[in-house]
């Protein structure tokens, strides 16, 4: 139940006269002041869940409304009282009131994801504009014409294919019973078409009359992972009496196309605006809004492109000082914007890159010897599996003991302030600091298992990673440090309280015995310098003389990432540390954050398109536009294991030739076949025993999940090795053991 007071001042409403045949040349404008008080009662039932909206809703409302028409305020248009003198003399500056009351009933059984693709909805409502009651009148009891509006609206949809391509039909009908009192109906109370009222290709308020009928046929189809498009056509008309009108002769037609972001997954960002272009009455009109949007986007792309090209430009002589480099500020949003939107476009303008493509002479990795192997030593990579014997036990020990925090109480010192999963920092009873991360509610083991498997895989593959372990604790085992803080959404720090900690724990998965399962990641030694980028160099590090996109270790990392579906392999998931060892201080480069590999997204399962297309994949989008969405996506034949602790990963549709991360990675983009084969040799070094040991270390509570992950990793490894090292080669032979 609600009571609302409203006041609207609309200074420049458009009016062309009454009927479908009103001339565009008769454009005029008017202003209105509209004041109302409305009481509303709403009752709904048929909810799918307590939090879901009601499927069937009944509402009733009533209250006075006062309205007065004024001269239009647009200096460039003729006011309505001049263009239509009869209407002007009857309405200008005359305040009128109505007592408005009505009721509606709607039923909504639509469903589907990412857009509604099945079912439909029906709504009917009636609204009476009656003589005002003197005691309730806002200003005057002078009434305009009384009338009753009956409206009916229905919309149905049906879809086909796995990623739904949906056809929708919408019909809206409005019938006004004007009665016989002969009072003047104000333009704002008439049925209108144009703009958002229907027939969007026409100006708002383009057609006015008592009744209207408008139909809309829409085809919604996906273009890529986060983008979908709709093509629609509208057909409609206004009538003095819809039941006696002849719609075929009066109907106006409008067609348009639009594209908008879909919420198929939880995206890190959304395209905020809908771009549209359309044509009406068979005449093409490119909307000014679309033109403006396109101009802004192109200008932005161009500006960012220049930054990107300069970032990859000539490098300065290295600084030979031995002091610690400064911390590298890294923008997460810019990384996505640059790599997923700007760089793919500007690459098409890169003459040198085009020339290399045409001549089939890509630039090979710069830090390899004449046997095509990485020159050592390297602060990025150390030869392990694929190059020397690494037992499963050595792999499980990884970079540290792999045992997690020492037994005893933990002291919480700060909340986790990066990434999308909740967590906090703790100090164990021995004084070691760990970052604690959890599984999302409803997805037990998913993220924590992925993290532990990932850290072991990438350590065994030769990369520097933190020491991760699965750990369990109870809320009673936590103490809050005296100086513990958390950071709010606006970057402000506050003292951490018990209430804060309890609320944080209420948002993570909890075991049936009351314990919390978490991943404990031992803090890396040294001073953090921020993430590294997958291109360019750190100019204040004298030992960083090779552009990162030319490094074999980073290019060949693609192969390992493809194997374990590390689609989150990007700059922000890396960390440079300034370490001092053996009397030498230097920058060591680490990969971090593996909780979004295998079938895990950071806060739930991976989306089906993971690995087969970027967030915004221009190549895939082009194909979908050309085929109007009828071309099947590469992932559509895949089978979801439907296991919450596994998420979505499978081997059937895994294509080892064209696996892709969430968005383009500059070093991966420069990879050549040699880089891939170098990485394939590492992947081939993981035996079935290694894979079984990896999954055992993840402590899946569901044995079916463990078995599925082992089988999937083996199948993906075999596909990848056969693709890049030859069909007749089995992995253990390649590994050279």
């Amino acid at each position, binding site marked *: 139940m609600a009571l609302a007071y409203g006041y609207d001042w609309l200074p420049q409403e458009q009016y062309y006269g009454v009927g479908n045949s009103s001339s565009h040349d008769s454009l005029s404008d008017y202003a209105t002041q509209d004041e109302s008080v409305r009481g509303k009662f709403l009752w709904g039932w048929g909810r799918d869940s307590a939090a879901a909206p009601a499927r069937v809703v009944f509402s009733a409302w009533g209250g006075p409304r006062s309205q007065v028409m004024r001269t239009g305020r647009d200096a460039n248009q003729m006011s309505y009282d001049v263009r239509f003198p009869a209407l002007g003399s009857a309405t200008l500056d005359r305040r009128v009131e109505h007592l408005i009351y009505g009721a509606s009933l709607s039923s909504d059984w639509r469903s589907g994801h990412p857009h509604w693709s099945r079912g439909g909805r029906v709504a009917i409502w009636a609204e009476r504009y009656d003589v005002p009651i003197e005691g309730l009148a806002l200003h005057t009891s002078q009434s305009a014409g009384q009338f009753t509006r009956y409206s009916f609206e229905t919309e149905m949809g049906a879809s086909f294919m796995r990623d739904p391509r949906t056809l929708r039909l919408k019909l809206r009908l409005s019938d006004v019973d004007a009665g016989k009192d002969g009072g003047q109906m104000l333009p704002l109370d008439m049925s209108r078409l144009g703009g958002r009222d229907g027939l969007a290709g026409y100006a708002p308020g383009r057609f006015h009359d008592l009744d209207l009928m408008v139909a809309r046929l829409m085809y919604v189809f996906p273009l890529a992972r986060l983008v979908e498009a709709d093509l629609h056509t509208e057909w409609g008309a206004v009538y003095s009496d819809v039941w006696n009108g002849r719609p075929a002769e009066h109907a106006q037609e409008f067609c348009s196309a639009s594209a908008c972001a879909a919420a198929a997954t939880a995206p890190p960002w959304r395209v905020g605006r809908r771009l549209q272009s359309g044509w009406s009455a068979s005449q093409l009109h490119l909307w000014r809004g679309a033109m403006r949007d396109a101009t802004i986007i192109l200008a932005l792309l161009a500006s960012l492109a220049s930054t990107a090209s300069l970032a990859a430009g000539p490098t300065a002589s290295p600084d030979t000082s031995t002091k610690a480099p400064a911390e590298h500020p890294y923008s997460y949003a810019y990384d996505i914007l640059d790599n997923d939107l700007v760089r793919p476009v500007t690459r098409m303008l890169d003459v040198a890159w085009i020339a290399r493509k045409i001549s089939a002479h890509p630039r090979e990795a710069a830090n*390899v010897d004449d046997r095509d192997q990485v020159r050592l030593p390297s602060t990025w990579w150390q030869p392990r599996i694929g190059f020397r014997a690494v037992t499963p036990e050595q792999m499980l020990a990884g970079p540290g003991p792999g045992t997690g925090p020492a037994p005893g109480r933990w002291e919480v010192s700060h909340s986790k302030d990066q990434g999308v999963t909740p967590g906090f920092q703790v100090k164990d009873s021995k004084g070691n600091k760990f970052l604690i991360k959890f599984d999302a509610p409803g997805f037990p083991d998913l993220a924590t298992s992925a993290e532990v498997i990932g850290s072991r895989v990438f350590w065994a593959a030769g990369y520097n990673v933190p020491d991760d372990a699965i750990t369990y604790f109870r809320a009673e085992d936590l103490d809050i440090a005296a100086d513990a803080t958390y950071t709010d959404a606006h970057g402000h720090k506050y003292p951490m309280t018990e209430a804060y900690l309890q609320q944080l724990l209420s948002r993570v998965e909890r075991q049936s015995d009351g314990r919390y399962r978490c991943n404990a990641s031992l803090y890396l030694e040294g001073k953090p310098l921020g993430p590294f980028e997958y291109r360019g160099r750190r100019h204040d590090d004298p030992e960083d003389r090779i552009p990162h996109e030319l490094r074999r270790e980073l290019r060949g990392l693609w192969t390992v990432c493809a194997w374990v579906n590390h689609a989150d392999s990007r700059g922000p998931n890396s960390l440079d540390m300034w370490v001092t060892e053996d009397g030498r201080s230097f920058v060591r480069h680490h990969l971090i954050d593996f909780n979004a590999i295998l079938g895990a997204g950071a806060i739930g399962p991976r989306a089906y398109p993971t690995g087969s297309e970027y967030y915004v994949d221009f190549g895939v989008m082009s194909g979908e536009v050309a085929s109007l969405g009828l071309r099947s996506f590469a992932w559509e034949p895949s089978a979801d294991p439907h296991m919450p602790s596994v998420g979505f990963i499978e081997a059937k549709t895994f294509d080892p030739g064209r696996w892709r991360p969430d968005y383009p990675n500059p070093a991966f983009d420069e990879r050549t076949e040699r880089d891939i084969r170098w990485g394939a040799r590492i992947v081939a070094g993981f035996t079935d025993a290694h894979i079984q040991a990896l999954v055992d270390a993840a402590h899946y509570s569901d044995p079916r999940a463990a078995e599925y992950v082992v089988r999937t990793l083996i199948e993906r490894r075999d596909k990848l090795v056969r693709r890049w090292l030859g069909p007749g080669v089995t992995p253990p032979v390649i590994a050279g053991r």
Partner: protein
Amino acid sequence: MKSMLIRSWSVAVLMVLAAGARADPAPVGDPPRPGPTPASQDSGASASFDSLAATSGVPWNPPHAMSPRRAWEQVVLLPGRVVSLPFTGLGAVTRHSLLYLENRGRVPIAPQPPRTKGPPMVGFQMLGLGDRTGPGRRGGTPLATIDGHHAHAGVLGMRRPPTCTTAPN
């Protein structure tokens, strides 16, 4: 005739560039063969190669910092760089602006902390921009919560320019 000349000129340029690419003295060698090829160990390296632990040795590096582009690539890309120079500042501003917003929580990069306080007494938010509506603001304040039902008072206002989206008919 003119278009043919332009096309021929374009092809010639691409041929020259392709020749440059072929002349690229990138370090190449035989493709890796299946088998236990050892990783490269340059002279002067640390003694930690046999260890599985990360090395602390001085890393191999070329004598001078490398450019990501060969000389011929830099030459052919120079005009584009000059032309795009005016946009460089805007790109840098975008990068720093996003970083600034992230550091102040305006662009979320971290998990939202659980709310331990009630909603603000008076809040304002931007209104959605619909057809024919300009930017607006909505403000409001909660009045009371009785048995789980909230009472709220608010005001909204927005500019409504007359024709911001449509083409003439």
